[in-house]
């Protein structure tokens, strides 16, 4: 899924883990409190969005499988202790753990809950934002109370990513959902390491019955801190334990120098891209798009404007993906070459172009930088900054010449590429470039079971993107977080979220 919206939030708010309010509310001696609170909108997995909601959900729900970011980097059992894939690659059978309990006495997890959760995402009535993620699911069947079978329409080796503990992969309790209805979003019932306690101030309490053992923290409190300087002070004063998602270069630099504060840095599966709308005549020509790629001084943007806090994105797949072809780098900054390409394409004196962006740091500012670079090679570029909802409406209509769009996703490379560049991804969707050049390659990668061959296809895809330049990836986001001395085992993950299940705090 994309994180442009989520980034919007992140930039606007830093969320922070907090401990004991300066003596105001001292925690009981044995209680360990990690406080983190964020702007929350609802925790129904079928509709989950925003990093804030996703981060809290990570603690409340489980998927059939989950990503193990720190050790193997691969997919490991979660609610399903094992699974089999049929010979034709189209049927997955998952065997659930025995005795997994729902929070607040909603009974034990059964295969029926899994079927209910995934059917619910597919059911049009739910209006789930992740219905497309299950587009290859033909049926979810209950074999017995602890066995669930998922039949696919076609073989799809990336399928485990769809049932991993993330968004639509989260399993909800049928009983709780049917009882609570809309209220489920603010009173979620899951199987995860923490039980959701309160909404107005988001508090999670340890699930002592968690199937992997009770977490070390007793409570997690989430707080919204929009102003990074405020969070910086609160962290140093010990009012918060974890300051999640720092963006401000000066704050990052200052905190890095404070003894006892650890600044964590993690490359996220997230690129910000300049989308070139091919239905706008000049941008329909590959030579023009290549000229634009040469005209942009992206290295300067990353190193000077972002103080080196962003990475080089390559071609949509960031370096955090094993499939990333690291040698296929971006086109070098070369204004002379750009002018030559424009002449060759039949635009010796340039053309008019508008870059549409929205009112949020840094998207408003980088639009100005990009327009400035384009003007230097003779393209008459202007900037249109819209408020976010208006921006979404304009992008949804597909009319702007150029928009800025971020894509991210779980460890599966299919998601960002498909969502950004498959011809079926507009309208509605993100492919406002109207690109169709990698459809067949993406489709063949989806059903290729051989890992080596899949890698080769993804390499081919990235090479093709480099030739065609339907989008210009601008930078790769790096996630920063800071924690206080005494906070152990904290790590942000490449999905831009985190899980505090293993975190401990020495007081």
């Amino acid at each position, binding site marked *: 899924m994309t994180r442009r919206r989520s980034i919007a939030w992140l930039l606007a708010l830093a969320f922070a883990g907090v401990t004991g*309010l300066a003596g105001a509310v001292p925690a009981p001696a044995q209680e360990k409190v990690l406080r983190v609170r964020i702007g929350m909108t609802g925790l129904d997995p079928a509709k989950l969005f925003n990093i804030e909601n996703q981060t809290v959900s990570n603690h409340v729900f489980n998927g059939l499988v989950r990503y193990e970011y720190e050790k193997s980097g691969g997919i490991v059992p979660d609610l399903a202790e094992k699974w089999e894939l049929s010979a034709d690659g189209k049927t997955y059978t998952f065997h659930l753990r025995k005795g997994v309990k729902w929070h607040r006495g909603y009974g034990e997890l059964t295969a029926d809950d899994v079927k209910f959760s995934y059917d619910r995402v597919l059911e049009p009535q739910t209006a789930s934002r992740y219905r497309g993620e299950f587009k290859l699911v033909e049926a979810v069947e209950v074999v017995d109370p602890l066995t669930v079978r998922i039949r696919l329409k076609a073989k799809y080796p990336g399928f485990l990513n769809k049932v991993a503990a993330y968004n639509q992969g989260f399993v909800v309790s049928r009983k709780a959902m049917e009882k609570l209805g809309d209220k489920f979003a603010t009173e979620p019932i899951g199987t995860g390491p923490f039980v959701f306690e309160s909404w107005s101030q988001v508090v999670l309490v340890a699930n002592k019955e968690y199937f992997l053992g009770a977490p070390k923290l007793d409570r997690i409190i989430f707080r919204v801190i929009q102003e990074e300087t405020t969070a910086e002070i609160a962290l140093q004063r010990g009012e918060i334990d974890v300051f999640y998602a720092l963006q401000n270069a000066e704050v990052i630099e200052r905190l890095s120098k404070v003894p006892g504060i650890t600044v964590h840095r993690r490359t996220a599966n997230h690129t910000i891209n300049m989308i070139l709308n091919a239905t706008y005549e000049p941008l329909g020509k590959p030579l023009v798009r290549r000229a634009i790629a040469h005209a942009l001084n992206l290295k300067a943007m990353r190193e000077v404007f972002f103080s080196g806090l962003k990475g080089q994105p390559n071609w949509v797949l960031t370096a955090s993906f094993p499939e990333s072809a690291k040698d296929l780098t971006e086109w070098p900054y070369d204004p002379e070459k750009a002018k030559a390409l424009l002449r060759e394409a039949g635009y010796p004196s340039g053309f008019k172009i508008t870059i549409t962006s929205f009112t949020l740091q840094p998207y408003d500012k980088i639009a100005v930088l990009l327009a400035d670079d384009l003007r230097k090679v003779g393209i008459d570029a202007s900037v249109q900054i819209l408020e976010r909802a208006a921006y979404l409406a304009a992008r949804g209509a597909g009319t702007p010449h150029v928009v800025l769009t971020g894509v991210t996703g779980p460890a599966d490379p299919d998601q960002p590429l498909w969502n950004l560049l498959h011809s079926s991804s507009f309208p509605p969707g993100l492919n406002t470039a109207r690109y169709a050049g990698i459809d067949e390659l993406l489709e063949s990668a989806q059903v290729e079971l051989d890992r080596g061959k899949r890698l080769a296809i993804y390499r081919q895809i990235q090479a093709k993107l480099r030739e065609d330049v339907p989008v210009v990836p601008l930078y790769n986001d790096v996630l920063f977080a800071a924690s206080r001395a005494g906070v152990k085992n904290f790590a942000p993950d490449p999905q831009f979220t985190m899980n505090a299940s293993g975190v401990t705090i020495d007081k």
Partner: protein
Amino acid sequence: MKRFLLQRLSFLALSVCGAFTIAFLVMRLIPGDPAQVMLGDYATKESIARLRETLGLERSVAMQYASFVGRALRGDFGQSLVTQRPAFHEVFAVFAPTMQLAVAGAVVSMLFGIPAGILAATRRNRPLDYVTMTLALGGMSMPVFWLGLLLLLLFSFTLGWTPTIGAGAEGGWLSTLHHLVLPALALGLSLGAMVTRMTRSAMLEVIRQDYIRTARAKGLRELLIIVKHALRNAALPILTIVGTNFGIQLGGTILVETVFARPGMGSLLISSIYQRDYPQVQALVVVFATSIVLVNVIVDVLYAAFDPRVRA
């Protein structure tokens, strides 16, 4: 007096209706669709259409308005589109910290502004007057946001006297007060500057009057003359500015809440506008407007108390 009150209260109802109607229309006239914002990047056409229907957005604006007003008259202001909880419920969850902040800010602005204004007026065109007025000009020009950060750096970070974030509601009233000190200072000081200027000019008007000269001639103590004879008569314009300031103050809470990471109506309003959460924005506007108008009705009533001529 009764007629006066009735008049003011009907004015209140009218103002709130007006504010609500404007909010209702503006939210629907600006581009952006709540269903699209809620469903995000991968929403299908059908799911957007379905959600719009569920939210009642397919009907004409006039129909939506009529049905909303109908329900509002029965006390139902709808549910937040985002959280699915009653919109008013969401507002009242954060009402207290915002009102505490606005009232504390008003108190701070008077505590600083009135004595400073009196001081400046009684030392007219002398160094103390210039210093006070320069400080007041500085205070008025200083953005609340910036002042808040400076206060945080000094009192929380360097001196360690005050907490940095939150409203401290979970720690009892003492903790609430402790958490209120800096935000109230940030909000009150910049508005206090306006109160200072208003107090000074009102006092200068009064001090020139004959009855003050008479009081002096009688040999009354200067402090008594200032407080009892001059200030009481200068109270009306000061009261006016405190009343009008209250609206600005509620607006200012939005920024102050951001700096001090306080829960409140301001932060809720901002996020609701971004989400195009129509019912939530409407509920907030109704509460904001009612509070502002109510405070001004109180100010009007106080006018009457201070000045019998108003009652006539």
